[in-house]
Protein backbone atom coordinates (compact mmCIF):
# COMPACT_ATOMS: atom_id res chain seq x y z
CA UNK A 1 0.00 0.00 0.00
CA UNK A 2 2.35 2.69 -1.23
CA UNK A 3 0.50 5.61 -2.74
CA UNK A 4 -3.28 5.68 -2.82
CA UNK A 5 -3.41 8.16 -5.68
CA UNK A 6 -1.09 7.88 -8.63
CA UNK A 7 -1.84 11.33 -10.11
CA UNK A 8 -0.04 14.52 -9.15
CA UNK A 9 -1.04 15.68 -5.69
CA UNK A 10 -2.93 18.98 -5.88
CA UNK A 11 -1.25 20.37 -2.82
CA UNK A 12 2.46 20.57 -2.44
CA UNK A 13 3.80 19.20 0.78
CA UNK A 14 4.68 22.11 2.94
CA UNK A 15 4.57 23.07 6.54
CA UNK A 16 0.99 24.10 7.30
CA UNK A 17 0.51 25.90 10.57
CA UNK A 18 -2.86 26.40 12.14
CA UNK A 19 -4.27 28.60 14.85
CA UNK A 20 -6.27 27.83 17.92
CA UNK A 21 -9.28 25.56 17.61
CA UNK A 22 -12.16 27.40 15.96
CA UNK A 23 -14.64 24.63 16.77
CA UNK A 24 -14.53 22.16 19.62
CA UNK A 25 -16.98 19.29 19.86
CA UNK A 26 -17.04 17.94 23.42
CA UNK A 27 -18.79 14.69 24.28
CA UNK A 28 -21.72 15.24 21.95
CA UNK A 29 -24.52 12.68 22.06
CA UNK A 30 -27.46 12.97 19.69
CA UNK A 31 -30.46 10.69 19.97
CA UNK A 32 -33.61 10.42 17.93
CA UNK A 33 -35.91 8.44 20.16
CA UNK A 34 -34.23 5.06 20.49
CA UNK A 35 -31.65 5.65 17.74
CA UNK A 36 -28.29 7.00 18.88
CA UNK A 37 -26.98 8.91 15.86
CA UNK A 38 -23.93 10.34 17.61
CA UNK A 39 -22.40 8.74 20.66
CA UNK A 40 -20.08 10.71 22.90
CA UNK A 41 -17.96 12.21 20.15
CA UNK A 42 -15.23 14.77 20.73
CA UNK A 43 -12.88 16.39 18.27
CA UNK A 44 -11.70 19.84 17.31
CA UNK A 45 -11.13 21.82 14.16
CA UNK A 46 -8.20 24.21 14.12
CA UNK A 47 -8.39 27.66 12.61
CA UNK A 48 -7.25 27.53 8.99
CA UNK A 49 -7.22 23.77 8.48
CA UNK A 50 -9.15 21.53 6.12
CA UNK A 51 -10.81 18.82 8.22
CA UNK A 52 -12.39 15.82 6.56
CA UNK A 53 -15.13 13.73 8.19
CA UNK A 54 -15.36 10.30 6.65
CA UNK A 55 -17.12 7.05 7.37
CA UNK A 56 -19.62 4.58 5.96
CA UNK A 57 -23.13 5.73 5.07
CA UNK A 58 -25.30 6.11 8.13
CA UNK A 59 -22.33 6.76 10.40
CA UNK A 60 -23.81 10.06 11.59
CA UNK A 61 -21.68 12.47 9.55
CA UNK A 62 -24.50 14.63 8.26
CA UNK A 63 -26.06 14.58 11.72
CA UNK A 64 -22.76 15.90 13.02
CA UNK A 65 -22.91 18.81 10.60
CA UNK A 66 -26.52 19.45 11.55
CA UNK A 67 -25.47 19.64 15.18
CA UNK A 68 -22.68 22.11 14.34
CA UNK A 69 -25.12 24.11 12.23
CA UNK A 70 -27.87 24.22 14.84
CA UNK A 71 -30.54 22.15 13.12
CA UNK A 72 -30.19 19.41 15.71
CA UNK A 73 -29.80 20.04 19.42
CA UNK A 74 -27.70 17.36 21.09
CA UNK A 75 -28.97 15.87 24.30
CA UNK A 76 -25.49 15.85 25.84
CA UNK A 77 -22.23 17.62 25.29
CA UNK A 78 -20.93 21.06 24.51
CA UNK A 79 -19.96 22.96 21.44
CA UNK A 80 -17.30 25.63 21.65
CA UNK A 81 -16.97 28.10 18.80
CA UNK A 82 -14.17 30.65 18.64
CA UNK A 83 -13.06 29.74 22.15
CA UNK A 84 -16.47 30.26 23.74
CA UNK A 85 -19.09 27.78 24.80
CA UNK A 86 -22.10 28.03 22.55
CA UNK A 87 -25.53 28.21 24.15
CA UNK A 88 -28.45 26.59 22.28
CA UNK A 89 -29.10 28.73 19.24
CA UNK A 90 -31.34 28.76 16.20
CA UNK A 91 -29.66 27.98 12.87
CA UNK A 92 -30.10 31.52 11.59
CA UNK A 93 -28.27 32.92 14.62
CA UNK A 94 -25.41 30.48 14.00
CA UNK A 95 -25.22 31.81 10.45
CA UNK A 96 -24.53 35.24 11.94
CA UNK A 97 -21.72 33.75 13.99
CA UNK A 98 -19.89 32.89 10.79
CA UNK A 99 -20.76 29.31 9.88
CA UNK A 100 -21.97 28.56 6.35
CA UNK A 101 -22.78 25.21 4.81
CA UNK A 102 -23.81 23.21 1.81
CA UNK A 103 -26.20 20.27 1.91
CA UNK A 104 -25.93 16.70 0.75
CA UNK A 105 -29.09 16.85 -1.37
CA UNK A 106 -28.61 20.46 -2.47
CA UNK A 107 -30.80 23.02 -0.75
CA UNK A 108 -30.84 25.82 -3.27
CA UNK A 109 -33.79 28.14 -3.80
CA UNK A 110 -35.02 26.44 -6.93
CA UNK A 111 -37.28 29.19 -8.21
CA UNK A 112 -34.57 31.85 -8.02
CA UNK A 113 -31.68 32.57 -10.36
CA UNK A 114 -28.04 31.76 -9.62
CA UNK A 115 -27.38 35.41 -8.91
CA UNK A 116 -30.28 35.71 -6.47
CA UNK A 117 -29.29 32.50 -4.72
CA UNK A 118 -25.76 33.70 -4.13
CA UNK A 119 -27.08 37.10 -3.07
CA UNK A 120 -29.04 35.39 -0.28
CA UNK A 121 -25.66 34.20 0.96
CA UNK A 122 -24.87 37.86 1.72
CA UNK A 123 -27.92 38.15 3.99
CA UNK A 124 -25.93 38.24 7.23
CA UNK A 125 -23.80 41.08 5.89
CA UNK A 126 -26.67 43.31 4.86
CA UNK A 127 -27.87 45.50 7.64
CA UNK A 128 -30.57 47.79 6.24
CA UNK A 129 -34.04 47.30 7.66
CA UNK A 130 -37.35 46.82 5.88
CA UNK A 131 -38.45 50.45 5.89
CA UNK A 132 -35.34 51.83 4.28
CA UNK A 133 -35.66 49.17 1.61
CA UNK A 134 -39.17 50.27 0.77
CA UNK A 135 -37.93 53.79 0.33
CA UNK A 136 -34.92 52.36 -1.51
CA UNK A 137 -32.87 55.48 -1.86
CA UNK A 138 -29.58 55.88 -0.12
CA UNK A 139 -28.51 53.22 2.31
CA UNK A 140 -30.39 50.21 0.94
CA UNK A 141 -29.44 50.87 -2.67
CA UNK A 142 -25.78 51.41 -1.80
CA UNK A 143 -25.71 48.24 0.25
CA UNK A 144 -27.33 46.27 -2.54
CA UNK A 145 -24.66 47.42 -5.03
CA UNK A 146 -21.76 46.76 -2.67
CA UNK A 147 -22.93 43.25 -1.97
CA UNK A 148 -23.68 42.67 -5.63
CA UNK A 149 -20.02 43.40 -6.39
CA UNK A 150 -18.89 40.76 -3.93
CA UNK A 151 -21.32 38.25 -5.39
CA UNK A 152 -20.00 38.95 -8.88
CA UNK A 153 -16.49 38.18 -7.60
CA UNK A 154 -17.73 34.85 -6.24
CA UNK A 155 -19.36 34.10 -9.59
CA UNK A 156 -16.11 34.87 -11.39
CA UNK A 157 -14.14 32.77 -8.94
CA UNK A 158 -16.36 29.76 -9.54
CA UNK A 159 -16.56 30.38 -13.27
CA UNK A 160 -20.35 30.33 -13.46
CA UNK A 161 -20.94 33.59 -15.33
CA UNK A 162 -22.87 31.92 -18.11
CA UNK A 163 -25.60 30.71 -15.76
CA UNK A 164 -26.00 33.85 -13.66
CA UNK A 165 -29.61 34.44 -14.61
CA UNK A 166 -30.72 30.85 -15.02
CA UNK A 167 -33.23 29.42 -12.56
CA UNK A 168 -31.15 27.00 -10.55
CA UNK A 169 -33.86 24.34 -10.67
CA UNK A 170 -33.01 23.92 -14.34
CA UNK A 171 -29.27 23.48 -13.88
CA UNK A 172 -27.45 20.15 -14.06
CA UNK A 173 -26.44 18.59 -10.77
CA UNK A 174 -22.75 19.54 -10.91
CA UNK A 175 -23.51 23.19 -11.54
CA UNK A 176 -26.10 23.25 -8.77
CA UNK A 177 -23.43 22.02 -6.39
CA UNK A 178 -21.16 24.81 -7.54
CA UNK A 179 -23.86 27.45 -7.05
CA UNK A 180 -24.50 26.12 -3.57
CA UNK A 181 -20.79 26.44 -2.82
CA UNK A 182 -20.98 30.00 -4.13
CA UNK A 183 -23.83 30.83 -1.79
CA UNK A 184 -21.84 29.51 1.17
CA UNK A 185 -18.70 31.37 0.06
CA UNK A 186 -20.60 34.63 -0.38
CA UNK A 187 -21.28 34.63 3.34
CA UNK A 188 -17.52 35.00 3.95
CA UNK A 189 -17.75 32.46 6.76
CA UNK A 190 -15.17 31.70 9.40
CA UNK A 191 -16.09 28.03 9.15
CA UNK A 192 -17.31 26.39 5.96
CA UNK A 193 -19.21 23.10 6.30
CA UNK A 194 -19.42 21.05 3.10
CA UNK A 195 -21.61 17.96 2.96
CA UNK A 196 -20.30 15.71 0.18
CA UNK A 197 -19.40 18.56 -2.16
CA UNK A 198 -18.01 16.22 -4.81
CA UNK A 199 -20.86 13.72 -4.94
CA UNK A 200 -21.76 12.76 -8.48
CA UNK A 201 -18.78 14.48 -10.12
CA UNK A 202 -16.20 13.14 -12.53
CA UNK A 203 -12.44 13.44 -12.01
CA UNK A 204 -12.17 16.80 -13.74
CA UNK A 205 -15.05 18.32 -11.81
CA UNK A 206 -13.58 16.97 -8.57
CA UNK A 207 -10.28 18.60 -9.35
CA UNK A 208 -12.07 21.90 -10.00
CA UNK A 209 -13.97 21.68 -6.72
CA UNK A 210 -10.81 20.74 -4.82
CA UNK A 211 -9.06 23.70 -6.36
CA UNK A 212 -11.90 26.03 -5.25
CA UNK A 213 -11.83 24.70 -1.71
CA UNK A 214 -8.07 25.02 -1.44
CA UNK A 215 -8.07 28.52 -2.92
CA UNK A 216 -10.66 29.67 -0.43
CA UNK A 217 -8.73 28.11 2.41
CA UNK A 218 -5.48 29.61 1.16
CA UNK A 219 -6.56 33.12 0.20
CA UNK A 220 -9.09 33.87 2.92
CA UNK A 221 -7.95 31.55 5.66
CA UNK A 222 -11.42 30.00 5.80
CA UNK A 223 -11.53 26.88 7.92
CA UNK A 224 -13.19 24.03 6.06
CA UNK A 225 -14.89 20.90 7.37
CA UNK A 226 -16.01 18.51 4.68
CA UNK A 227 -17.76 15.17 4.53
CA UNK A 228 -16.26 13.21 1.71
CA UNK A 229 -16.25 9.65 0.40
CA UNK A 230 -13.45 9.87 -2.15
CA UNK A 231 -10.28 8.92 -0.30
CA UNK A 232 -8.15 10.34 -3.08
CA UNK A 233 -9.66 13.76 -2.51
CA UNK A 234 -9.26 13.39 1.24
CA UNK A 235 -5.61 12.49 0.86
CA UNK A 236 -5.07 15.46 -1.42
CA UNK A 237 -6.71 18.27 0.45
CA UNK A 238 -7.38 17.31 4.05
CA UNK A 239 -5.01 18.21 6.86
CA UNK A 240 -6.67 15.95 9.40
CA UNK A 241 -9.43 13.41 9.29
CA UNK A 242 -12.16 12.29 11.69
CA UNK A 243 -13.54 8.84 11.03
CA UNK A 244 -17.04 7.94 12.22
CA UNK A 245 -18.79 4.61 12.27
CA UNK A 246 -22.24 3.86 13.74
CA UNK A 247 -22.20 7.16 15.61
CA UNK A 248 -18.82 6.63 17.23
CA UNK A 249 -15.45 8.14 16.45
CA UNK A 250 -13.00 5.47 15.38
CA UNK A 251 -10.16 7.61 14.11
CA UNK A 252 -8.81 11.15 14.40
CA UNK A 253 -5.49 11.75 12.67
CA UNK A 254 -3.71 12.87 9.53
CA UNK A 255 -4.79 11.17 6.31
CA UNK A 256 -1.59 9.18 6.06
CA UNK A 257 -2.01 7.70 9.51
CA UNK A 258 -5.70 7.07 9.05
CA UNK A 259 -4.92 4.81 6.12
CA UNK A 260 -2.87 2.63 8.44
CA UNK A 261 -5.47 2.53 11.22
CA UNK A 262 -6.77 -1.04 11.48
CA UNK A 263 -10.19 -0.06 12.89
CA UNK A 264 -10.71 2.31 10.01
CA UNK A 265 -9.62 -0.25 7.47
CA UNK A 266 -12.01 -2.84 8.89
CA UNK A 267 -14.96 -0.51 9.02
CA UNK A 268 -14.56 1.54 5.92
CA UNK A 269 -11.54 1.31 3.69
CA UNK A 270 -11.34 -2.39 3.09
CA UNK A 271 -8.21 -4.05 1.80
CA UNK A 272 -6.23 -2.19 -0.87
CA UNK A 273 -5.71 -3.83 -4.23
CA UNK A 274 -2.50 -3.35 -6.16
Amino acid sequence: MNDVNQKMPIMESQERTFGAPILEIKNITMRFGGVVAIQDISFDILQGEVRAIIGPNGAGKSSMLNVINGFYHPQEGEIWFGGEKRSPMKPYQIAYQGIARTFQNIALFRGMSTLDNIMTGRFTHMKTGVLSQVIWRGAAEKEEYENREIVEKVIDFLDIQTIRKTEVGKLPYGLQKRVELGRALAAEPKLLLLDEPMAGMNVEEKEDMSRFILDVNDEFGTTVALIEHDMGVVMDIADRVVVMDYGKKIGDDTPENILKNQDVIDAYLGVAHD
Partner: protein
Amino acid sequence: MFFLLDPFFYEIVISGLLAGVMYALVALGFVLIFKASGIFNFSQGVLALFAALTLVGFQTGQIPFAHLLSLFGFHVTHWGAGFPTVIAILFSLFVMIGLAWLIVQIVLKPLVNQEGIILFMATIGLAYVLEGVGDLMWGANVKMLDVGLPKGPSEFILDTTDMFIDKLEISAAVVAIILVVVLTLFSAYTKMGRALRAVADDHQAALSVGISLETIWWIVWSVSGIVALVAGVMWGAKSGVQFSLSLIALKALPVLMLGGFTSIPGAIIGGLMIGLGEKLFEFYIGPMIGGATENWFAYMLALLFLLFRPQGLFGEKIIERV
Protein backbone atom coordinates in the same frame (compact mmCIF):
# COMPACT_ATOMS: atom_id res chain seq x y z
CA MET B 1 -69.72 44.27 -34.13
CA PHE B 2 -71.95 47.27 -33.73
CA PHE B 3 -71.65 47.19 -29.98
CA LEU B 4 -68.14 48.62 -30.24
CA LEU B 5 -69.74 51.86 -31.35
CA ASP B 6 -72.03 51.92 -28.36
CA PRO B 7 -70.45 54.19 -25.73
CA PHE B 8 -72.24 52.25 -23.06
CA PHE B 9 -70.00 49.31 -23.92
CA TYR B 10 -66.94 51.28 -22.86
CA GLU B 11 -68.64 52.35 -19.67
CA ILE B 12 -69.21 48.71 -18.81
CA VAL B 13 -65.66 47.81 -19.71
CA ILE B 14 -64.18 50.53 -17.53
CA SER B 15 -66.59 49.82 -14.71
CA GLY B 16 -65.72 46.15 -14.92
CA LEU B 17 -62.00 46.82 -14.91
CA LEU B 18 -62.31 49.07 -11.90
CA ALA B 19 -64.37 46.52 -10.03
CA GLY B 20 -61.73 43.97 -10.95
CA VAL B 21 -59.03 46.10 -9.38
CA MET B 22 -61.00 46.10 -6.15
CA TYR B 23 -61.12 42.30 -6.24
CA ALA B 24 -57.41 42.20 -6.97
CA LEU B 25 -56.74 44.30 -3.90
CA VAL B 26 -58.24 41.61 -1.71
CA ALA B 27 -56.53 38.80 -3.60
CA LEU B 28 -53.16 40.50 -3.08
CA GLY B 29 -53.30 39.84 0.65
CA PHE B 30 -53.79 36.13 0.01
CA VAL B 31 -50.96 35.98 -2.50
CA LEU B 32 -48.42 37.54 -0.16
CA ILE B 33 -49.03 35.12 2.66
CA PHE B 34 -49.28 32.10 0.41
CA LYS B 35 -46.10 33.08 -1.42
CA ALA B 36 -44.03 33.38 1.72
CA SER B 37 -45.43 30.68 3.96
CA GLY B 38 -47.53 28.36 1.84
CA ILE B 39 -50.58 29.10 3.98
CA PHE B 40 -53.98 29.95 2.52
CA ASN B 41 -55.14 32.64 4.89
CA PHE B 42 -58.85 32.07 5.42
CA SER B 43 -58.95 35.13 7.68
CA GLN B 44 -57.83 37.63 5.03
CA GLY B 45 -61.37 39.00 4.55
CA VAL B 46 -61.86 39.35 8.29
CA LEU B 47 -58.50 41.12 8.50
CA ALA B 48 -59.85 43.68 6.02
CA LEU B 49 -62.99 44.07 8.11
CA PHE B 50 -61.03 44.38 11.35
CA ALA B 51 -58.72 46.95 9.80
CA ALA B 52 -61.63 49.03 8.56
CA LEU B 53 -63.38 48.80 11.95
CA THR B 54 -60.21 49.93 13.70
CA LEU B 55 -59.84 52.86 11.35
CA VAL B 56 -63.43 54.01 11.87
CA GLY B 57 -62.97 53.49 15.60
CA PHE B 58 -59.98 55.80 15.70
CA GLN B 59 -61.61 58.31 13.41
CA THR B 60 -64.79 58.63 15.44
CA GLY B 61 -63.11 58.34 18.81
CA GLN B 62 -64.76 55.11 19.84
CA ILE B 63 -63.77 53.47 23.07
CA PRO B 64 -62.68 49.90 22.33
CA PHE B 65 -64.70 47.19 24.08
CA ALA B 66 -67.30 49.79 25.01
CA HIS B 67 -70.08 47.21 24.86
CA LEU B 68 -68.18 44.90 27.21
CA LEU B 69 -67.44 47.72 29.61
CA SER B 70 -71.11 48.70 29.68
CA LEU B 71 -71.81 45.39 31.37
CA PHE B 72 -69.85 46.74 34.30
CA GLY B 73 -71.83 49.95 34.39
CA PHE B 74 -69.47 51.98 32.23
CA HIS B 75 -71.77 53.42 29.59
CA VAL B 76 -69.62 55.77 27.55
CA THR B 77 -68.99 54.75 23.96
CA HIS B 78 -66.94 57.63 22.63
CA TRP B 79 -64.09 59.75 23.93
CA GLY B 80 -65.73 62.86 22.59
CA ALA B 81 -63.39 63.51 19.73
CA GLY B 82 -61.78 61.34 17.12
CA PHE B 83 -58.37 61.49 15.50
CA PRO B 84 -57.85 63.24 12.21
CA THR B 85 -57.97 60.83 9.30
CA VAL B 86 -54.23 60.69 8.63
CA ILE B 87 -53.42 59.95 12.27
CA ALA B 88 -56.20 57.36 12.40
CA ILE B 89 -54.73 55.64 9.35
CA LEU B 90 -51.29 55.65 10.94
CA PHE B 91 -52.61 54.17 14.17
CA SER B 92 -54.52 51.53 12.23
CA LEU B 93 -51.29 50.59 10.46
CA PHE B 94 -49.60 50.13 13.82
CA VAL B 95 -52.49 48.00 15.02
CA MET B 96 -52.25 45.74 11.97
CA ILE B 97 -48.50 45.37 12.40
CA GLY B 98 -48.96 44.56 16.07
CA LEU B 99 -51.72 42.10 15.20
CA ALA B 100 -49.37 40.42 12.72
CA TRP B 101 -46.83 39.97 15.50
CA LEU B 102 -49.45 38.42 17.76
CA ILE B 103 -50.56 36.06 14.99
CA VAL B 104 -46.97 34.93 14.42
CA GLN B 105 -46.37 34.30 18.12
CA ILE B 106 -49.70 32.67 18.99
CA VAL B 107 -50.70 30.87 15.78
CA LEU B 108 -47.71 30.36 13.52
CA LYS B 109 -44.81 29.62 15.84
CA PRO B 110 -46.48 26.74 17.67
CA LEU B 111 -47.48 25.17 14.36
CA VAL B 112 -44.18 25.59 12.56
CA ASN B 113 -43.64 22.16 11.07
CA GLN B 114 -47.23 21.11 10.62
CA GLU B 115 -48.97 20.24 7.40
CA GLY B 116 -50.47 22.98 5.27
CA ILE B 117 -53.98 21.79 5.99
CA ILE B 118 -53.45 22.25 9.72
CA LEU B 119 -52.22 25.80 9.22
CA PHE B 120 -55.24 26.42 6.99
CA MET B 121 -57.54 25.27 9.77
CA ALA B 122 -55.72 27.54 12.17
CA THR B 123 -56.52 30.49 9.91
CA ILE B 124 -60.19 29.47 9.94
CA GLY B 125 -60.08 29.65 13.71
CA LEU B 126 -58.28 32.96 13.46
CA ALA B 127 -61.06 34.31 11.23
CA TYR B 128 -63.73 33.54 13.80
CA VAL B 129 -61.65 34.91 16.67
CA LEU B 130 -60.95 38.16 14.82
CA GLU B 131 -64.57 38.53 13.87
CA GLY B 132 -65.64 38.12 17.48
CA VAL B 133 -62.94 40.45 18.79
CA GLY B 134 -63.88 43.01 16.15
CA ASP B 135 -67.48 42.88 17.30
CA LEU B 136 -66.54 43.16 20.97
CA MET B 137 -64.11 45.98 20.37
CA TRP B 138 -65.95 48.18 17.94
CA GLY B 139 -69.56 46.99 17.77
CA ALA B 140 -71.47 45.35 14.94
CA ASN B 141 -73.49 48.30 13.70
CA VAL B 142 -72.93 49.49 10.16
CA LYS B 143 -70.51 52.39 10.07
CA MET B 144 -69.88 54.95 7.42
CA LEU B 145 -66.28 55.31 6.36
CA ASP B 146 -64.99 58.51 4.92
CA VAL B 147 -61.28 58.99 4.42
CA GLY B 148 -61.65 62.04 2.27
CA LEU B 149 -61.54 60.21 -1.03
CA PRO B 150 -63.52 61.83 -3.80
CA LYS B 151 -67.01 60.44 -4.22
CA GLY B 152 -69.70 60.43 -6.82
CA PRO B 153 -69.48 60.31 -10.58
CA SER B 154 -66.56 62.00 -12.22
CA GLU B 155 -68.08 65.13 -13.69
CA PHE B 156 -65.25 65.58 -16.12
CA ILE B 157 -65.79 62.20 -17.70
CA LEU B 158 -69.54 62.57 -17.52
CA ASP B 159 -69.43 65.83 -19.42
CA THR B 160 -66.99 64.78 -22.08
CA THR B 161 -68.05 61.22 -22.82
CA ASP B 162 -71.44 60.68 -21.19
CA MET B 163 -70.02 57.85 -19.09
CA PHE B 164 -70.86 57.41 -15.43
CA ILE B 165 -67.63 56.47 -13.69
CA ASP B 166 -67.35 56.60 -9.93
CA LYS B 167 -64.40 58.67 -8.67
CA LEU B 168 -64.01 56.37 -5.70
CA GLU B 169 -63.41 53.42 -7.97
CA ILE B 170 -60.81 55.39 -9.90
CA SER B 171 -58.97 56.24 -6.66
CA ALA B 172 -59.11 52.59 -5.58
CA ALA B 173 -57.68 51.53 -8.92
CA VAL B 174 -54.81 53.99 -8.65
CA VAL B 175 -53.96 52.91 -5.11
CA ALA B 176 -54.17 49.23 -6.02
CA ILE B 177 -51.90 49.64 -9.02
CA ILE B 178 -49.35 51.53 -6.97
CA LEU B 179 -49.44 48.81 -4.32
CA VAL B 180 -48.95 46.06 -6.88
CA VAL B 181 -46.03 47.84 -8.53
CA VAL B 182 -44.33 48.57 -5.21
CA LEU B 183 -44.80 45.00 -3.97
CA THR B 184 -43.59 43.45 -7.21
CA LEU B 185 -40.44 45.59 -7.21
CA PHE B 186 -39.90 44.93 -3.53
CA SER B 187 -40.12 41.19 -4.02
CA ALA B 188 -37.75 41.12 -6.97
CA TYR B 189 -35.03 43.61 -6.11
CA THR B 190 -34.59 44.03 -2.38
CA LYS B 191 -32.83 41.95 0.25
CA MET B 192 -36.08 41.40 2.17
CA GLY B 193 -37.93 40.52 -1.02
CA ARG B 194 -35.27 37.90 -1.75
CA ALA B 195 -35.57 36.63 1.79
CA LEU B 196 -39.35 36.28 1.34
CA ARG B 197 -38.87 34.25 -1.82
CA ALA B 198 -36.18 32.18 -0.11
CA VAL B 199 -38.45 31.31 2.81
CA ALA B 200 -41.19 30.34 0.36
CA ASP B 201 -38.77 28.00 -1.40
CA ASP B 202 -36.80 26.16 1.27
CA HIS B 203 -37.02 26.73 5.03
CA GLN B 204 -33.80 24.88 5.90
CA ALA B 205 -31.70 26.68 3.34
CA ALA B 206 -33.15 30.02 4.40
CA LEU B 207 -32.25 29.30 8.02
CA SER B 208 -28.72 28.27 7.13
CA VAL B 209 -28.23 31.55 5.29
CA GLY B 210 -29.21 33.59 8.32
CA ILE B 211 -32.87 34.34 7.59
CA SER B 212 -35.10 34.24 10.64
CA LEU B 213 -38.40 32.59 9.71
CA GLU B 214 -40.27 34.40 12.47
CA THR B 215 -39.15 37.82 11.31
CA ILE B 216 -40.11 37.06 7.72
CA TRP B 217 -43.54 35.81 8.76
CA TRP B 218 -44.10 38.93 10.79
CA ILE B 219 -43.15 41.12 7.83
CA VAL B 220 -45.40 39.18 5.44
CA TRP B 221 -48.42 39.21 7.73
CA SER B 222 -47.85 42.91 8.42
CA VAL B 223 -47.78 43.71 4.72
CA SER B 224 -50.88 41.57 4.19
CA GLY B 225 -52.49 43.41 7.07
CA ILE B 226 -51.68 46.74 5.44
CA VAL B 227 -53.07 45.50 2.14
CA ALA B 228 -56.15 44.35 4.06
CA LEU B 229 -56.46 47.84 5.54
CA VAL B 230 -56.39 49.39 2.07
CA ALA B 231 -58.92 46.86 0.77
CA GLY B 232 -61.14 47.38 3.81
CA VAL B 233 -61.00 51.14 3.40
CA MET B 234 -61.85 51.02 -0.30
CA TRP B 235 -64.72 48.58 0.08
CA GLY B 236 -65.88 50.23 3.28
CA ALA B 237 -65.97 53.64 1.66
CA LYS B 238 -68.03 52.14 -1.13
CA SER B 239 -70.64 50.28 0.88
CA GLY B 240 -70.07 51.04 4.55
CA VAL B 241 -68.18 49.03 7.14
CA GLN B 242 -70.36 46.10 7.98
CA PHE B 243 -69.65 42.53 8.90
CA SER B 244 -70.51 41.23 5.47
CA LEU B 245 -67.32 42.99 4.36
CA SER B 246 -65.42 39.84 5.19
CA LEU B 247 -67.31 38.12 2.40
CA ILE B 248 -65.26 40.02 -0.18
CA ALA B 249 -62.65 37.38 0.47
CA LEU B 250 -64.91 34.91 -1.30
CA LYS B 251 -64.71 36.98 -4.46
CA ALA B 252 -60.93 36.78 -4.25
CA LEU B 253 -60.94 33.02 -4.72
CA PRO B 254 -61.77 33.09 -8.44
CA VAL B 255 -59.16 35.81 -8.85
CA LEU B 256 -56.56 33.52 -7.30
CA MET B 257 -57.64 30.61 -9.47
CA LEU B 258 -57.06 32.71 -12.56
CA GLY B 259 -53.98 34.60 -11.53
CA GLY B 260 -52.24 31.89 -9.59
CA PHE B 261 -51.78 31.78 -5.84
CA THR B 262 -48.21 33.00 -5.87
CA SER B 263 -48.11 35.79 -8.40
CA ILE B 264 -48.49 39.44 -7.42
CA PRO B 265 -49.08 40.71 -10.97
CA GLY B 266 -51.31 37.69 -11.46
CA ALA B 267 -53.63 39.00 -8.76
CA ILE B 268 -54.20 42.18 -10.76
CA ILE B 269 -54.62 40.44 -14.10
CA GLY B 270 -56.93 37.86 -12.57
CA GLY B 271 -58.93 40.57 -10.86
CA LEU B 272 -59.27 42.55 -14.08
CA MET B 273 -60.40 39.50 -15.99
CA ILE B 274 -62.99 38.56 -13.39
CA GLY B 275 -64.26 42.11 -13.03
CA LEU B 276 -64.46 42.68 -16.76
CA GLY B 277 -65.92 39.27 -17.51
CA GLU B 278 -68.55 39.61 -14.83
CA LYS B 279 -69.87 42.94 -16.07
CA LEU B 280 -69.81 42.03 -19.76
CA PHE B 281 -71.47 38.67 -19.15
CA GLU B 282 -74.15 40.24 -16.97
CA PHE B 283 -74.95 42.91 -19.49
CA TYR B 284 -74.90 40.99 -22.72
CA ILE B 285 -75.74 37.41 -21.84
CA GLY B 286 -77.50 37.98 -18.53
CA PRO B 287 -80.85 39.11 -19.91
CA MET B 288 -81.09 35.93 -21.97
CA ILE B 289 -80.78 33.66 -18.97
CA GLY B 290 -82.69 35.49 -16.31
CA GLY B 291 -80.13 37.98 -15.06
CA ALA B 292 -78.29 38.11 -11.71
CA THR B 293 -75.31 36.36 -13.19
CA GLU B 294 -72.82 38.47 -11.28
CA ASN B 295 -73.22 36.18 -8.35
CA TRP B 296 -71.92 33.08 -10.03
CA PHE B 297 -70.04 34.01 -13.19
CA ALA B 298 -66.71 34.39 -11.42
CA TYR B 299 -66.93 30.94 -9.88
CA MET B 300 -67.90 29.35 -13.17
CA LEU B 301 -64.86 30.92 -14.81
CA ALA B 302 -62.69 29.72 -11.93
CA LEU B 303 -64.09 26.22 -12.34
CA LEU B 304 -63.10 26.21 -15.99
CA PHE B 305 -59.59 27.25 -15.06
CA LEU B 306 -59.37 24.56 -12.41
CA LEU B 307 -60.24 22.01 -15.05
CA PHE B 308 -57.83 23.16 -17.72
CA ARG B 309 -55.07 25.19 -16.10
CA PRO B 310 -55.02 24.68 -12.34
CA GLN B 311 -51.91 26.73 -11.66
CA GLY B 312 -53.63 29.77 -13.08
CA LEU B 313 -52.16 32.04 -15.70
CA PHE B 314 -49.16 33.11 -13.68
CA GLY B 315 -48.79 30.58 -10.92
CA GLU B 316 -45.42 29.03 -10.33
CA LYS B 317 -44.55 26.15 -12.55
CA ILE B 318 -43.00 23.30 -10.65
CA ILE B 319 -39.37 23.45 -11.67
CA GLU B 320 -37.68 20.17 -11.24
CA ARG B 321 -34.92 18.52 -13.15
CA VAL B 322 -35.47 14.81 -13.18
